[in-house]
């Protein structure tokens, strides 16, 4: 018998006796894990070079202090060796490697009835590295990355314990949600007659329709609760969920204290137990926002928020709501596919609690995005001049773009002119359209540069609405103006956009206007779209989803217990030390198997 093993065996026997004395053999570790692959810690698989007899196999094992298990298939050329106590698999692999009777040796890998979403696999499941990181490459079309196998949230094993969060309503307070998305619709919150469209819209005049015209909220919702195992798209952290759609950010992704706080209050009063806030802003302390989180705390609501994407320290530059200090708040940083802090992620040794996957996250989209870049050549670009077109718009010879007095620069525009040019765009079927104009402008006081829109075609300065109008934009100097405008109310087959240079009778003229870019970004709502996004906004719903799993599994928990399970049951990452308060990455299995230390132990002696 190998002397190394003998020594170890004696020690191991002693340890074993102690464990048995204390009746704690249950505490032994059964499996080891390396690079995401588990194997039995006291066993190896041996492949023999020749067809050894049973007794020869036994002797081979005995040479190492191990025991050969009988293989059920007597003709098999491999066998299982049980190692002596306290001898590691790694040590055994090295020693067996030189045995003349053994062709190869390997760990006895663990294969589980892993809870993959069923009954029908979700086709994009393998793109979800945060769920199951196998080092898969992910591409946005412009860049491709891949990470380290095993660097994930151990969700597959966690799903053996819990995959249904439908008893815990999670409010996604965001840009709204495309609640008709085929991968989400079954998991939307049932708001009954009060909220028939699964939530509320607090943007603008408000309504009962929280449809997402940006895409951010729908992406967040998919991470949290895309239906698992429906054969469509992706799998959410929660296979079954109750997702409340609360729209507080507009189509451009912006909101205010007023909209956000109204959304939080709606979530609280309508029974949400977790609020996902993948949003943030810097600046001074916001007392009204702070009060809303107090109300959430009083209602035993957990609030999960994003750390921010400025690659900065929140201890130095606070980001709200991350920097609020409520005990019911969890602030989440983002990890990349290598389980490093993502390059863009904020951090904070006290303000940021934990990290979760946030880069290259594939999830539900609210629709198909498009872009129209208008050619800025008058004739070839389909631009039309008005009947009283005078000095004329043309293509700038000395500068790019559509110019009010061609060629741009060097020839001042004329006095008492009304120069117009316009173009019609077919936006049929589009759900959202946003116009972005960039122009170089030099217009005197008393002269005007106008941009108008008309939904039904024709000269937009005859009957249309103003996009932009200004005088005295920059006397004698050229400035660059960037104009954003929501075209959505004018969507149709003949959406017409026009520009006008209107000059005074006494004008001395100036350079005028040169349009250098005209872009229309479109979104066509669609129920079967997916896309990759990155940010702490994506990390947040991973944390919120795991919180929902934990709470659904342990319904007697308070927000304190759920937060503890996430932070204390997380996976320690050295790269997070000093960057988050816990130094942990979200670990779904660790959170679900975390057991709080028993409290309130007391004794009575009679």
């Amino acid at each position, binding site marked *: 018998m190998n002397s190394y093993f003998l020594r170890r065996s004696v020690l191991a026997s002693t340890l074993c006796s*102690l*464990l048995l*004395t*204390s*009746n*704690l*053999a*249950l*505490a*032994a*570790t*059964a*499996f*080891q*894990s*390396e*690079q*995401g692959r*588990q194997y039995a810690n006291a066993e190896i698989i041996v492949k023999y070079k020749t067809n050894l007899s049973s007794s020869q196999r036994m002797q081979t094992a005995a040479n190492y202090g191990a025991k050969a298990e009988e293989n059920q298939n007597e003709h098999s050329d491999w066998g299982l060796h049980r190692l002596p106590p306290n001898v590691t698999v790694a040590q055994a692999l090295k020693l067996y490697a030189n045995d003349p009777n053994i062709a190869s040796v390997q760990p006895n890998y*663990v294969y*589980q*009835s892993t*809870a993959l979403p069923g009954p029908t696999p979700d086709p994009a499941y393998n793109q979800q590295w945060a769920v199951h990181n196998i080092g898969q490459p992910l591409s946005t079309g412009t860049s491709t990355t891949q990470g*380290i196998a*095993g*660097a994930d949230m151990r969700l597959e*094993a*966690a*799903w*053996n*314990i819990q995959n249904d969060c439908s008893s815990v309503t999670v409010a996604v307070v965001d840009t709204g949600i495309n609640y008709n998305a085929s991968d989400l619709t079954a998991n939307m919150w049932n708001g009954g007659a009060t909220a028939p469209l699964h939530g509320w819209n607090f943007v603008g005049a408000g309504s009962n329709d929280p449809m997402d015209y940006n895409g951010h909220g729908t992406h967040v919702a998919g991470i949290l609760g895309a239906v698992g195992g429906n054969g469509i798209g992706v799998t959410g952290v929660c296979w079954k969920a109750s997702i409340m759609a609360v729209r507080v950010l507009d189509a451009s992704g912006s909101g205010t204290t007023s909209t956000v706080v109204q959304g939080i209050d709606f979530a609280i009063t309508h029974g949400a137990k977790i609020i996902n806030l993948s949003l943030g802003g810097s600046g001074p302390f916001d007392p009204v926002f702070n009060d809303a989180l107090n109300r959430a705390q009083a209602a035993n609501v957990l609030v999960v928020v994003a750390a921010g994407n400025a690659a900065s320290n929140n201890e130095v530059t606070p980001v709200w709501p991350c920097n609020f200090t409520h005990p019911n708040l969890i602030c989440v940083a983002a990890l990349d596919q290598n*389980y490093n802090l993502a390059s863009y992620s904020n951090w904070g040794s006290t303000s940021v609690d934990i990290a979760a996957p946030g880069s290259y996250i594939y999830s539900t989209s609210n629709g198909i995005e498009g872009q129209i870049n208008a050619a800025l050549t008058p004739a070839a670009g389909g631009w039309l001049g008005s009947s009283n077109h005078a000095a004329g718009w043309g293509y700038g010879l000395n500068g790019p773009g559509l110019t009010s007095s061609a060629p741009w620069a060097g020839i001042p525009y004329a006095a008492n002119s009304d120069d117009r040019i316009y173009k019609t765009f077919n936006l049929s079927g589009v759900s959202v359209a946003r116009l972005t104009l960039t122009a170089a402008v030099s217009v005197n006081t008393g002269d005007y540069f106008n941009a108008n829109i008309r939904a039904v075609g024709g000269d937009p300065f005859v009957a249309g609405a103003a996009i932009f109008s200004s005088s005295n934009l920059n006397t004698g100097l050229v400035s660059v103006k960037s104009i954003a405008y929501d075209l959505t109310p004018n969507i149709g087959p003949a959406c017409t956009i026009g520009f006008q240079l209107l000059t005074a009778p006494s004008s001395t003229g100036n350079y005028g206007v040169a349009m250098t870019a005209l872009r229309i970004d479109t979104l066509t709502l669609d129920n079967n779209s997916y896309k990759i996004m990155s940010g702490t906004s994506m990390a947040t719903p991973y944390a919120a989803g795991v919180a929902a799993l934990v709470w659904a*599994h*342990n*319904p*007697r*928990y308070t927000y304190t*217990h759920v937060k503890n399970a996430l932070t204390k049951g997380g*996976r*320690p990452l050295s790269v997070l030390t000093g960057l988050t308060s816990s130094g942990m990455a979200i670990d779904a*299995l*660790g959170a*679900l*198997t975390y*057991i*709080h*230390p*028993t*409290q*309130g*132990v*007391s*004794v*009575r*002696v*009679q």
Partner: protein
Amino acid sequence: MMFPTLKMPLILCTALLLVACGGGGGGGGGTAPAATVHQVTLNWEENLEADVNMPGGGYKIAISGQPIIDVAFPAPPSITLTLPSGSYNAIVTAYSPINPNTGMSYLNNTIAMASVANFSRPSTSITIDIP
């Protein structure tokens, strides 16, 4: 990349061993007076984890110098025992049947067996003084 796994049960094991083996048992040398025996009741707050409050779950009670006591579900969170004079330390540790490496219950998985049960960190140690 290698991540730490399952360190907690070993920590727990050590903690329970220390409590189970150290201290207690009735004092120092010399001629011991006749030991008196008292009935002791230990209570604790029930853990809120669903997996502790299910078959295969429960609590381990470690009292210095005494065998570990298993209070398996569905027993209430209390034990009564007799102890001779002396000073003892006691801790309570909750456990569940869920393997923290796989998420599988050992009750439903003959491969995983009982060696993979999941333990909490021990409670705060409490002192029991028996006159």
